[in-house]
Structure formats: structure tokens, C-alpha cells
């Protein structure tokens, strides 16, 4: 039996893998010590668990555990990376470069830095969602201190050329921050070779719990930051506050499982995603958003032309999917990411993001295909626009009467 609604929104959040939850639970009840308690075994036990988890996170991305700073999530990591570096290096320059399709956690932080007197360049992306390296290079100025580019886009799943950007930034003495919230477990990340200085992670997009993330802070060459949260001096002064042991243990276990299983898991998920794409490709007037080659295996973002976005979402209530990213979907604005690809508002509005995951089955994908076929043809039957298109009218030449 299928459980409805079918969850196809793994980029918004993932369930905690039951193996992860099992590791977490003892740290809420029996092993509940404060890792900062230095005077008894409860504290030491918690501290040891925190350090073991730190090693697991470091291992997935080939970093030194000392380069991993715990935070409450990727949003906090992005804030700490951008504000922390901008404020620390403000004597060197006051310009930052980022991209229009970044997550709000980066864009809103950049807006805040602008209010603090920093200048920020927001780069366009190409039609396929990828950043043009020449445009990137050209945007860097002598007073640029930091560039921030996401590894994998949350809406369209495209993978940016981080390695090349790292080379460009390093040669110019500019720090590179990468938001990798959507990348862990999907893309191999090797910080020994990538010339990335700061990288944000979170657990809950990779089958770990919500409420925990990490910031990678490179030690060689050493990157420094102004702390944003002050107090007991936890995390070597980078981030104060009691460490949530159970959540950290969960993130460690989730990243360990990702390291061990991502190879086979991603192939299985890619097959399901491709099955979904094939199943939808025979619907007329559907457009895939974002490059299909440089893309994580679990993401499919499709615009269904001549279907009204809200009606579509209502019609496919049996599928838990998102239109635009979860964080902005409460607003009725069309996705700014799709607009940055040059999609018009109608196509942006009628887009659906499908993100598959560890627990997605072939049966669920087939159900989704059937449902979409059915609902889209029904919605289009009701659409006067679709009727006009069928009659051969070119809608772009139509003069609409004002009301």
C-alpha cells in the first residue's frame, strides 16, 4: 500500500534515518551530560561523542576535525561565514561577490552586510543555472574579500564549478565560501583538493536531525572569523552555546552513513529520477529547469506550461512536492531562482520541484507519473489559454484587454 501523500521533497528536509535516531536517543536520557562539563564522567562522555561526530563530519569532506565548527544549521553557518569573514577582513576590503540564485540565508546576509557598508555584486547565472566562470572572474575586484557560491542549488539541483572558482579565488587572494547544505551525500566533496576556505553544512538534508549544522573553517592557509555568538567560548571561540550532543551525534552518524552509502544510493536514486523524467517527458509543453548534466541525481525541476501553479499544487495534493524552495514558498512570488534562469513568471509559477531520496520507491514514482498525466490534462482542458494554443494562436502576439 502506498502511503499518501508521497514525500518527494527531500531537498526541503529528510527524515532522520532510523539508524541515526537510534544513535541519538541515548544522549537525551542516559548520556545526557553537558559536553562542556569538565569535572565528571557525564561531561566527558558527551564530549567524546561530540568529538567522534566531528571526525565523521570531517571525514565525509576530507577535512581535519579541527576545521569543523558546530552551529545550529546551515543558515547560521552561512551567517557566521559571511559576516564573520567580512567583519574580520574589513580592513582589507569591503566588497563581496555572490550569485542571484543563492539561498536566502546567503542573500539576506549579504543585504545585511550592505547595510553595514559592504558592497556586494550579485551575479547572474546562465540559462542552465550555472555560473559563467569568466563573468565570475571579471566580477572580482582588488577590494573583494570573499566570494560565496553554493555547491548545489536547492531548487534546480545544478552543481556549480566550485573547483575552478577555488583556483580563481585562491590566485587572487580572495576567500571562497561554499554553501554545501544540498551537496553532502550527493556530490563527492574533497576539501584537500578544493581551494575552498569556508563551507556550510547541515544535517537535516542528509538524513540527520534538524537543529545542527557545521561550518568548515580552513586552517591551512588559516582563515579567521569574527564570532557572531559570544559566551562561554565553546568551539574555540568561534561559536558559544551549549552543544546539543544528541543532534551532533546524529549529524555524525548521518554523515558516516552518507560516506559509506552515497555511491550506491545515488545510482538508485538517479534511476528513479530518470524514470520520473521519462514518464513526464511525453506531456506536451513541459520544460526542465536547470542543466541536466551538472546536476545532483535526486532533483527534477519542471515547468508545466499553460497550467496555473496554485491549481496544479492543489490538484496533486497526494504528492508532497514544492514549488520554489520551502523557505520562500509561503509567498506567492514566483521563484527568484527560476526567474534568474530567464523563465517568465507563468513558467516559474507552474514549476514543481521533485526531490527524491533514500526511501523513495519505484511504485511511488510511477504513481506520481500517472497522477501528473491525469491532472495536467484535466487542468489544461479547463484552460482557455491551452485551447487557444491548440487552435494555433501565438499567445505572445495576443493583445490582452485591460480591466
Amino acid at each position, binding site marked *: 500500500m502506498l502511503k499518501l501523500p508521497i514525500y518527494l521533497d527531500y531537498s526541503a528536509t529528510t527524515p532522520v534515518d532510523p539508524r541515526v535516531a537510534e544513535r541519538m*536517543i541515548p544522549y537525551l536520557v542516559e548520556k545526557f*551530560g553537558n559536553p*562542556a562539563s569538565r569535572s565528571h564522567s557525564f561531561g566527558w562522555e558527551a564530549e567524546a561523542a561530540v568529538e567522534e561526530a566531528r571526525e565523521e563530519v570531517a571525514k565525509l569532506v576530507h577535512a581535519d576535525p579541527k576545521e569543523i565548527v558546530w552551529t545550529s544549521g546551515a543558515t547560521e553557518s552561512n551567517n557566521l561565514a559571511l559576516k564573520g569573514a567580512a567583519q574580520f577582513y574589513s580592513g582589507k576590503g569591503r566588497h563581496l561577490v555572490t550569485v542571484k540564485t543563492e539561498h536566502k540565508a546567503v542573500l539576506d546576509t549579504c543585504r545585511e552586510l550592505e547595510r553595514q557598508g559592504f558592497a556586494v555584486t550579485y551575479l547572474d547565472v546562465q540559462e542552465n543555472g550555472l555560473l559563467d566562470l569568466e563573468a565570475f572572474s571579471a566580477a572580482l575586484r582588488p577590494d573583494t574579500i570573499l566570494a560565496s557560491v553554493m555547491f548545489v542549488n536547492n531548487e534546480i539541483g545544478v552543481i556549480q564549478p566550485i573547483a575552478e572558482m577555488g583556483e580563481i579565488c585562491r590566485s587572487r587572494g580572495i576567500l571562497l565560501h561554499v554553501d554545501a547544505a544540498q551537496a553532502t551525500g550527493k556530490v563527492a566533496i574533497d576539501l584537500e583538493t578544493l581551494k575552498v576556505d569556508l563551507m556550510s553544512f547541515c544535517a537535516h538534508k542528509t538524513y540527520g536531525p534538524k537543529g545542527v549544522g557545521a561550518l568548515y573553517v580552513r586552517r591551512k592557509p588559516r582563515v579567521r572569523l569574527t564570532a*557572531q555568538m559570544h559566551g562561554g567560548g565553546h568551539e574555540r571561540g568561534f561559536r558559544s552555546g551549549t552543544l546539543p550532543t544528541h543532534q551532533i551525534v546524529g549529524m555524525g552518524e548521518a554523515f558516516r552513513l552518507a560516506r559509506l552509502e552515497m555511491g550506491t544510493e545515488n545510482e538508485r536514486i538517479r534511476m528513479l529520477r530518470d524514470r520520473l523524467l521519462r514518464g513526464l517527458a511525453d506531456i506536451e509543453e513541459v520544460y526542465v529547469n536547470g542543466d541536466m548534466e551538472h546536476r545532483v541525481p535526486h532533483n527534477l525541476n519542471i515547468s508545466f506550461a499553460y497550467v496555473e501553479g496554485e491549481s496544479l499544487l492543489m490538484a496533486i495534493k497526494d504528492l508532497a512536492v514544492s514549488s520554489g524552495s520551502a523557505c520562500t514558498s509561503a509567498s506567492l512570488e514566483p521563484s527568484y531562482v527560476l526567474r534568474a534562469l530567464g523563465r517568465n513568471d507563468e513558467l516559474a509559477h507552474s514549476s514543481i520541484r521533485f526531490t527524491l531520496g533514500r526511501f523513495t520507491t519505484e511504485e511511488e514514482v510511477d504513481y506520481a507519473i500517472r497522477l501528473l498525466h491525469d491532472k495536467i490534462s484535466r487542468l489544461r482542458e479547463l484552460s482557455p489559454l491551452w485551447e487557444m494554443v491548440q487552435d494555433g494562436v501565438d499567445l505572445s502576439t495576443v493583445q490582452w484587454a485591460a480591466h
Partner: protein
Amino acid sequence: MFAPVYFDHNATTPADPAVLEAMLPYFSEQFGNASSRHEYGRAARRAIDEARAQVAAAVGAHATEVVFTSGGSEANNLLLKGSAACLRPGLLAVGAAEHPCVLKPAEQLARRGWTLEKLPVDGGGRIVREQYEAVMARKPKIVSLLLANNETGVIEDIEPLAERARAAGAWFHSDAVQAFGKLPVDFRRLNGAGVHALTLSAHKMGGPKGAAALIVDKRIDLEPLIAGGGHERGLRSGTENVAAIVGFGVACQLVVERRAALAAHLLRLRAQLEQGLLALGGKLFGSEAERLPNTVYFAFAGVDGETLVGHLDRAGYAVASGAACSSANPEPSHVLRAMGVDDQLARGAVRVSLGRGNTEEQVAGFLATLQATVDRLQRLTAMAV
């Protein structure tokens, strides 16, 4: 194997079994992102709304006055830096015996143009009224004072202090992390007296680590500490930690149901412990003031605190020397220094903080162990001299 006795509830507490049970479904089944519009997301949103109502009810606040954060430190940082960012720099006054997560942000603001006054405390750990009055006369813009001290357990009578601060035109914040769960805390009443914000933390009162709240009067303008997505009415962005928030809510409900009985239980144990300590010749800190029912802070002349807690740990008793956060720091406690305790005695400070699961037998066993340990250590010290 024997289980060590946990006497460090001011550092953190275990999650109550009912709290754990309430949290479990939100890991792997009801795992939605509360910002998602589908059923998974809406279920998560409903759970957060319910927890927000539970937290609000436990402190007599309105649900819209609750801002969830990742912890007490973040809530204190948010209030201090966030309110300061919306004001022109001026005078900021905090207690000299505050927790580092108030003192350090205050010191940061002092580097950004604010004038910082650390309000002195007396030998009992309470704010000295004359000096408080003198600072208020200089019209501070922000005042922050602990409701109950994490080390000594000393309770501050903040209502008259808040009233005075309000008359001076200040925002008044109180870190109630240690008080909540052990004392009645009524934000509506405190707010009426001029308290504009309170900090609460789940893991100090039977909830999980990773969830806390700033209870805040909406008249305070706050600049968020963490931007991006506009969660928590724009005051704190980031995907909500649903499971921990649910646990926090249930822990708050348990406080409502159990607090009075718990306080009575803790007071009995504390009296037993203090009698024993005095009989052994221990010195109690802050005993002249009203204190939390669970906290006893003491020292024995000539006995180093670090050494003593090490011995006690090996004997099966988990206690603290100074606050957990600064336990790595060999400096004597800033709280005891502020109270005028000499460094020699302050280095001997040991904190026992009792909790729901502790018993009279445990306290009696602890006193017997302590007597033997202190005797031995004092003899060793005497021989060394």
C-alpha cells in the same frame, strides 16, 4: 557496575521520559520542514504552534511573544546585540555576576561604541542598590540581570530593579534560564513591572539541548542575529528544530504540573545537604540571600575545588567546580570575585545542583564521601605546609 550520582543539574538535565516520547515521532515520521506547504510541513508547523503555546502558558506570556532559538546563549546574544543594533550607542548595564553569554556580548558592544557598566553585587550576590541607583541616574538604554545565578543560585528581586530601569527609559532583560522550572516565572506580571524580555532554555529544565526561547515584549525593536528566510517573525532565520521545540513545549507543560512539588522536594534535599556541609565545617556561598531550591555552592578552607571534584567524580558523584562553560578556565569564578570572596577560598568552590531524580540517600552518601575526602585532602595540605 554502579551508576554515578548526578548532582550537576544547573549544567544540564536529562530529558524527561515524557519529553523524549513526545519528540520521537518528529525524527523519522513527522519529519516535515515547517515551512513546506504540504501535509508534512503543515504537521510540523502545527507541532511548533502547540509547543509555542505551551512555552507561553508556562510563563504567562502570549504565544506571539515567544521567539525560538538554538539555546540560551543565542537568546541572550539576540536580545543584547539585536536591541543595541536598533539604538544609538549609549549606556549598557549588566550584572557583574552574569553568565558569560551576557557578559561577553556586552563586552562586544563596548567595543562598538557602547559604554558598559557592570553592576556590582554584595557578599550575598545581590545587586547593590545604591550603585544600581547611581547607574540608573545616568539613563542606561539596556539593562540585563540574571533572575537566578547559575553558580550560587542566588535569586535577584528583579521587579523593583526593572521598575527603576523603566523609569530611566531602559529596556530590561533577565536571563531566567536557571530560574525557570524551579521558581514561578510570570512574564505578564514581570512585564507589568518593566521586564521586557526573558531568556529560557529547555535543557536546564527537563527538555532537550538545542531549543530555547526569548520571551520578548513586541515593543522592543530587534535586529536578527541570524538572517535568511525570515523564520520566527523575521527575528531568527533557519529551519525550525521541530523535535527539540516539541520537547521544549512538553517540558514546559511538565513544569506547570510539577514545579511546586519539585521545589519542595529540592528544598528538603538542600536543607539536608547544607546542614551536613555546615557540620563538616564547609563555607556556603550566597547563603544570606534567597536562593534556588536546588543549588548549593560551597568550599572547604585549604581544599582545592578542582581536586575535590576529581575525587568526588571517582567516588561516583558528578558535581561542578564553577560554571560548566568556563570549567576549562583555571581562574577563580568571576561570580565569587564579584561577591568579594577571596581567591584562595574561591578556588575551593564546588557546586552541587540537585534535580528531580535525586534522593535523600544520595545526599547522605555524598556527605559521607565528602567528609572522608575533605579530611584526607586537608591532612595532605597540612602536611605540605
